[in-house]
């Protein structure tokens, strides 16, 4: 009896394994397409019947993806804005999560509902008017906006941090308070190091959000300050305004690479953090 259940489990695992392999293969197709296209010649793309692989891998496309637009400049811009957004976003969310977990006053619940309700506000509903206000005041083309955007935090991350802090015994702080430590000392010396996993999750989220943000830079920033997201969205084209798909795909490989690296180096802790903190409760 026990043996049949065991066997059935193994059979089910094998079955699911095969299905998942098939799905993974299908999931990889668009990425393979991206990579293969990035190595083809432009005229090769329109030849019928089309070939799966390029006649000759054209690595030159990767060079052109970098030189055809001032890729380095947009990369630096993207990095600046990402840091400018991510740091306050992580800190502000962490602070807020701490406040909601530790200092529950009468209105805490109501304020927390306000935090959660900001998830319901479509981004454009705030960004469009903000753009008009800033344009009117002559502040539109300012990177500092990303800092304020960060201060507004990420509701989901605030929720996550609240959960994380709630799992830390309150006695940790009380003994520190007995020793005469101030509230910020307690926070930075004791509490903050204990929610590292939360910080990693927050950092990945914040990075992903600002790295992929299109609306903000396209509205606010001039070309000088614009980001990779905008450049990638607009695509590469030649003098006759033909879109260069192959070089565009090479650009996308560059653009996606940092996210891939960050994700794969941190994914174990990222997923663990999501599963441990945010989702239970």
């Amino acid at each position, binding site marked *: 009896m026990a043996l049949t259940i065991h066997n059935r489990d193994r059979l089910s695992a094998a079955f699911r394994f095969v299905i998942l392999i098939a799905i993974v293969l299908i999931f990889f197709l668009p990425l393979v397409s991206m990579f293969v296209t990035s190595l083809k010649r432009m005229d090769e793309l329109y030849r019928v019947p*089309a070939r*799966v692989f390029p006649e000759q891998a054209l690595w030159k496309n990767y060079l052109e993806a970098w030189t055809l637009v001032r890729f380095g400049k947009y990369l630096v811009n993207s990095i600046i804005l990402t840091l400018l957004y991510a740091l306050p976003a992580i800190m502000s969310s962490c602070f807020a999560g701490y406040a909601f977990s530790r200092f529950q*006053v009468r209105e805490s619940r109501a304020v927390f509902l306000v935090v959660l309700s900001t998830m319901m506000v479509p981004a*454009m509903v705030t960004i469009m008017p903000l753009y008009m206000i800033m344009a009117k005041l002559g502040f539109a083309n300012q990177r500092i906006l990303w800092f*304020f955007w960060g201060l507004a935090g990420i509701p989901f991350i605030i929720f996550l941090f609240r959960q994380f802090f709630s799992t830390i015994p309150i006695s940790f702080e009380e003994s520190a308070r007995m020793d005469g430590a101030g509230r910020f000392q307690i926070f930075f010396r004791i509490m903050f190091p204990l929610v590292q996993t939360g910080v990693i999750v927050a950092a990945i989220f914040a990075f992903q959000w600002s790295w992929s943000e*299109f609306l903000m830079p396209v509205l606010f920033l001039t070309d000088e300050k614009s980001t990779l997201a905008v450049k990638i969205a607009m695509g590469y084209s030649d003098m006759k305004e033909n*879109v260069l798909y192959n070089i565009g795909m090479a650009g996308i490989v560059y653009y996606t690479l940092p996210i891939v690296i960050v*994700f794969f180096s941190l994914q174990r802790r990222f997923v663990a953090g999501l599963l441990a903190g945010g989702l239970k409760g």
Partner: protein
Amino acid sequence: MSTATTRFSLERHKRTSFYLFLLPWIIGFLFMQVTPIIWGFLISLTNRSAFPIAVRFVGLKNYLELFRDKAVLGSYWVSFVYTIANTLIGVITGFLFALMLDRNLPGRGFFRTILYFPYMIPMVAVGWIFRIFLERDTGFLNIVLMRLGILESGIPFIQQSPMGSILILSFWQAGWSMIIFLGALSTVPRELYEVATIDGAGYGRRVRHIMLPLISPFIFFQLVMSFIYAMQAFIQPYILNPRPIRGNWLMTNTPPEETFFVMSRAYYIITSQNKFSYGLAMLWVLFAVVLLGTILFVKFGGFWVYTEAEERK
């Protein structure tokens, strides 16, 4: 007496701490959310355009006009259809993935990472990747299908169904809801399955009577979140536009009516047609719809959600 004062000062200390730690968020919230929302609403009551000459208060005129504007109503409908389809595809796919990954399986971590991965790729990149993937002549999908002998000749997927080509992304990017459901499934006590198995319940019944009720709060959460995010879809129809894209004209090349989402049209109305107040009114109606929809859904849509008796308030 003295304990009362201590409690009072403790409460005050607590409140000070609460607001001190919340201060950065409050600043950001006031600056990034409250001010723009209110200002946007006020402007939507005027006739302001890009050139603010003779701006005056026109009351609800813009809103009334919205409801007579066939194109705008069409956009709301298109966004609504997309939202429903996207939510269903995302939630069902994510749930099935999680179901397959939940129990012991060789390479579980690998599958989880790979299936989550597409969600990490920025939307503008995903859009272009699929624009090329689905193209008739250059498209890899057509090439593969023809090589496998499934297709005779290439299909112009994007031209044939712009909406379908955008919805494929919901399938590809279902990783987020998979993670949510994996977390949900890990909260279901194993013993319950074992007991049910001993009682003779098959897999289907275990899923229906034990798993689904227990993870229903997560399903609910995921439905709400997906609804909110899908309503905001904006750039997809511009990139997966069946019309050819030339040079740097991506954002001036309007999508076809069947995928002209609310956000995409609002962007177009504001930036290309310069009708500021009209576009803001359109955004405000969407905001109201999302808010009202979410509240109604949370209030009345949750009747099927299982809660522990003592948690019910």
